[in-house]
């Protein structure tokens, strides 16, 4: 059980320099503990997406190291990670994938090589569709959903694999206020009731600092990493965004 006390993700002195010379991340140090809900904040181009991709092994750091579930061999443990990319909602309306099939894709890493999806996978998908209240959409084409519906489908796809860690890259961009509020409620439930660790990058500073227990504020380099209670949003955000910021909250969020 001592393993559980160890951080799920250990990021040590991670720097990323792109081939064009741009420094995307510079000396990031973070421990992500089980049950954390981390708000990843920073302006556009701050390296938020890059950091999430480094954790997933999609981008190799120029220096530093990442441990995922105690191993530097990231691909070995990716089946325990759910990921919703920034562009998840923007789909070709003609893409011939139904909502059901899209969510089923999330089961792929769990089915072994040479094995198709089985009855257990289908049952899991049905349950997840109901949990996220998208069961009635299951035969609709993924590209024909609204932003809010689409974002729930991609969260369901990430969750159907029973992940221990969820990485969400600006999942609410382009989504209306009501859907955003619903989305954050679901996320809070997943974190509190199911014990799923979440790293959430977003510009909804007011809302996510309300649901997060920890905050990581970056703008290529690390500005703040610590408990939400110690985070002086206005002061830190001013520094990171380099201009005055007004914190907005959705009125219908609890």
């Amino acid at each position, binding site marked *: 059980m001592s393993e559980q006390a160890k951080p799920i993700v250990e990021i040590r002195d991670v720097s990323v320099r792109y081939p064009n010379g741009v420094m995307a991340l510079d000396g990031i140090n973070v421990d992500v503990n089980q049950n954390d809900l981390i708000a990843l904040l920073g302006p556009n181009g701050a390296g938020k997406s890059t950091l999430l991709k480094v954790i997933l092994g999609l981008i190799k750091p120029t220096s530093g190291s990442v441990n995922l579930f105690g191993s530097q061999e990231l691909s070995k443990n990716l089946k325990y990670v759910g*990921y919703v990319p920034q562009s998840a909602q923007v789909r070709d309306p003609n893409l011939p994938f139904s909502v059901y099939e899209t969510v089923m*894709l999330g089961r*792929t*890493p769990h089915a072994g090589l040479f094995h*198709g999806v089985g009855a257990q996978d289908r049952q899991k998908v049905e349950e997840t569709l109901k949990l996220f*209240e998208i069961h009635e959409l299951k*035969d609709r084409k993924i590209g024909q959903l609204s932003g809010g519906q689409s974002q729930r489908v991609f969260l369901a796809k990430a969750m159907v694999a029973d992940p221990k860690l969820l990485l969400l890259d600006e999942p609410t961009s382009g989504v209306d206020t009501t859907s955003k509020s619903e989305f954050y409620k679901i996320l809070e439930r997943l974190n509190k009731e199911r014990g799923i660790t979440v790293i959430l990058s977003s510009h909804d500073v007011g809302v996510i600092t309300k649901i997060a227990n920890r905050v990581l504020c970056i703008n290529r380099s690390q500005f703040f990493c610590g408990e939400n209670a110690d985070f002086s949003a206005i002061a830190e955000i001013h520094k990171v965004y380099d201009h005055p910021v007004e914190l907005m909250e959705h009125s219908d969020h609890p």
Partner: protein
Amino acid sequence: MIILESILNLLQAGFVQRAFIISIIIAVLSSVLSIFIVLKQISLIGHGLAHTAFGGLALGYYLNIVPFWVGGVTVVLGSLGITKAMRSAKISGDAAIAVFIELGLAGGIVLLSVARGFGVSLESLLFGSVLVVSFDQIIGASVVAAITLGIIFVFFKELVYVTFDETQAKAAGIKTWFFDYLISVLAGITVIVAIPIVGVLLIAALLVLPALTSIQISKSFRQTVILSPIFGLITVVSGLFLSILIDAAPGGAIVLTGLAILGIILVAKRIQSFGKSPEKPALTASNET
């Protein structure tokens, strides 16, 4: 009546029956592959591979080594090269394919012109010779089709994920590079088997049109997998009938038939969307919470 009788007589001829059988095998194979090719937005790869194979076959004729094997090796190397170039950030995918098209076509034409007298015509490679298919060619195409479809079946769920979204597939731990190369090599093998029969131009079309047509009306990937071979079969069978009926080149007739089917589907879809357009906003908003 006389025309119908002569068509029925023709259908009883062994060479026509063999033409239909091999066209059906190639149609099914290329239609299934076309799903992954079109959805991965690498539709031009069929052209790139077909022209690379053309260059390889011409090299085989020039060197007087079994053209099929020289062409086969060339197209597999070409498929690996095209995929490597497309995955590289240094050159755009369409430019990479264009380079291989030019290289294959120019090299092939030069070699064929030098190799004149080795019993091969430019026309037969470009347009194929579906009406002079041997029994051995049918066996060869069947074996290739069975192996290729078998590989697709084995890796189906991974191929589907990579086709859906490469970044998300990679984030799920799938080795996407392997599947990029796999699709390309399988398409290359299909091309080399199909070219002597249906020609460079037709095989490139068959690697795009069936999926492109089925995507227009499919609501799911499952439907696309069912409809794509059906459209492929309808295209080759009716195209071959048309070519016999009007005594036209089979390859051209089949491609035009495929394009006509796509055109009809697009027009029908457009007409249908006119009727449905006022409901669209309501549909989008109805399930929003």
